[in-house]
């Protein structure tokens, strides 16, 4: 019997995080302070972050030791299992091998405690008594609440009011771990009171919630703020995932050709992918794909044809389902919206061609999530379904091309408190729309002169 789970012994848990900053082909530009025009320095951030995290934010050390106190807490759920998705492979009748790293086994149900543990620890040793943060549905808020409870730190979560009212279970999880969860805007901060004075019925927003969380940290020197994504130190802490995965792949004598993760702010993607990006920088041939939760018209309605992989026709011709290389949905054109809110490390690696971004529509992701649940059993968080959908695409591509490939994706969390989204999908409340035919015809004219792949000529 082939092993289903590749389990790393606790004694083999990585002892260092991997920091990609010194290996990046294009170094990140330091952000400039809007007031002084000088690079943002430690003093600018010290009102809200403890110094060890600020140091990690700018560190150029490739490897950073994980303190024993953090390792001890990681062992509650780490190392996480790497699974071989045999059932999904059989269902898809693909020659590809599909692996997924299960980050949903943490107490909070996602990858987020990987950094929450570290942030709680560094705050603890820096004398912080209370940590504030903002949250929407509560995935980050619950992760931080859990980790603060392990280190005896108070946690206050400003939860966007519309989410607070809609997502009671995550809120109750936070409270179970001892956090205080308040609906934002609240009357606890000047920022919140100002909003409420103007609009008592304000449903809140992440922008308001973060203003409140930062203000609460600035107002009290024993209080700091914590962010669950985007920042360099968050990416750093998450790399324990990919470092474990490398050891697990080595245990079965395999190595991925394709690595996939969903990318909202970038942290779960970075966690699994960055150690492999290092391998790619050092010469490994890997396709590393960041899947974005964007609702753009899917390209799969186009014919299977040779086309360029980019909009300017610079890449080699590739057989693909395409609407023509000139077709880019309009919202993607619009002013760099696509990378708004993405971790600078990930954005830069995309620009350097080390990571390939792909956008997948909401309906395709839910379809993939259902397929995954009915083959591998696990119900994915809707964000995680983006990675599942891309893995299925790649597995089907391998089938079409008759290639054996090793596909690895990061299963970043379960969706057991996100069932309303599945209900909407299963009950047909998320309707699909066809593209206007004239738009499709215009786009396809571009690929008319190009050669046709054999499969398209059948």
């Amino acid at each position, binding site marked *: 019997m082939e092993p289903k789970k590749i389990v790393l012994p606790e004694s083999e848990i990585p002892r260092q995080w991997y920091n990609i900053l010194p290996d990046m082909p294009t170094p990140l530009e330091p952000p400039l302070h809007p007031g002084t025009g000088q690079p943002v320095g430690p003093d600018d*951030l010290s009102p*809200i972050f403890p110094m060890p995290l600020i140091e990690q934010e700018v560190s150029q050390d490739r490897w950073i030791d994980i303190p024993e106190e953090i390792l001890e807490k990681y062992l509650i759920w780490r190392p996480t299992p790497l699974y071989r998705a045999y059932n999904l492979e059989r269902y898809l009748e693909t020659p590809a091998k599909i692996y997924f790293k299960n980050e949903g086994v943490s107490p909070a149900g996602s990858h987020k405690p990987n950094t929450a543990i570290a942030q709680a620890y560094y705050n603890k040793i820096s004398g912080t008594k209370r940590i504030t943060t903002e949250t929407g549905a509560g995935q980050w808020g619950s992760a931080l609440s859990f980790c603060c409870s392990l280190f005896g730190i108070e946690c206050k979560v400003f939860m966007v009011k519309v989410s607070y009212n809609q997502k009671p279970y995550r809120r109750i999880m936070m409270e179970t771990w001892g956090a205080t969860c308040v609906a934002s805007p609240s009357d606890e901060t000047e920022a919140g009171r100002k909003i409420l004075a103007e609009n008592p019925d304000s449903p809140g927003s992440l922008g308001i919630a973060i203003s409140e969380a930062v203000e609460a940290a600035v107002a009290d020197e024993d209080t700091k703020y914590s962010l669950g994504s985007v920042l360099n130190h968050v990416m750093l802490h998450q790399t324990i995932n990919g470092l474990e995965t490398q050891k697990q792949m080595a245990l079965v004598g395999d190595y991925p050709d394709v690595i996939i993760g969903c990318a909202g702010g970038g942290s779960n993607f970075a966690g699994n992918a960055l150690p492999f990006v290092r391998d790619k920088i050092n010469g490994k041939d890997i396709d590393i794909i960041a899947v974005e939760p964007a609702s753009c018209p899917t390209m799969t309605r186009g014919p299977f044809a040779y086309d360029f992989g980019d909009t300017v026709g610079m890449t080699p011709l590739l057989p693909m389902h395409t609407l023509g290389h000139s077709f880019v949905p*309009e919202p993607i054109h619009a*002013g760099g919206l696509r990378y708004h809110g993405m971790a600078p490390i990930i954005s830069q690696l995309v620009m350097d061609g080390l990571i390939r971004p792909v956008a997948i529509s909401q309906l395709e992701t839910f379809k993939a999530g259902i397929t995954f649940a009915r083959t591998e059993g696990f119900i994915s968080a809707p964000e995680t379904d983006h990675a599942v959908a891309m893995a299925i695409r790649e597995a089907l591509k391998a089938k079409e091309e008759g290639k054996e490939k090793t596909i690895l994706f990061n299963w970043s969390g379960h969706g057991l408190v996100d069932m309303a989204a599945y209900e*909407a999908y299963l009950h047909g409340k998320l309707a699909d729309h066809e593209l206007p035919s004239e738009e499709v015809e215009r786009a396809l004219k571009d690929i008319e002169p190009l050669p046709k792949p054999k499969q398209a000529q059948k």
Partner: protein
Amino acid sequence: MEKSVEPPGDDFKIRCPRLGHQIFFSYCVIESDGNPCFKILDCWHQYFEVETYLKTHLNSEQWDKLVNRPPKPKVLSLVELIEQAKKRKKEAE
């Protein structure tokens, strides 16, 4: 199927990639301090003619802000929030 030029009502919700749960259009259109969320075109493009709708209902400044606002690095946003919070703290004292 032709896409509607009118937004769906509050009984129709789609997943918000930022909040992490289902949300209705009338929230997205006021999410950012009374202005649309920066993801609104991406998220609603598939369900109705959101671009046409917003071009009709936003003034030129709001539309320009929505589509041409350059992304701000997170660290800078935090520094700005810290400065604002310090100012509010001073005013309160």
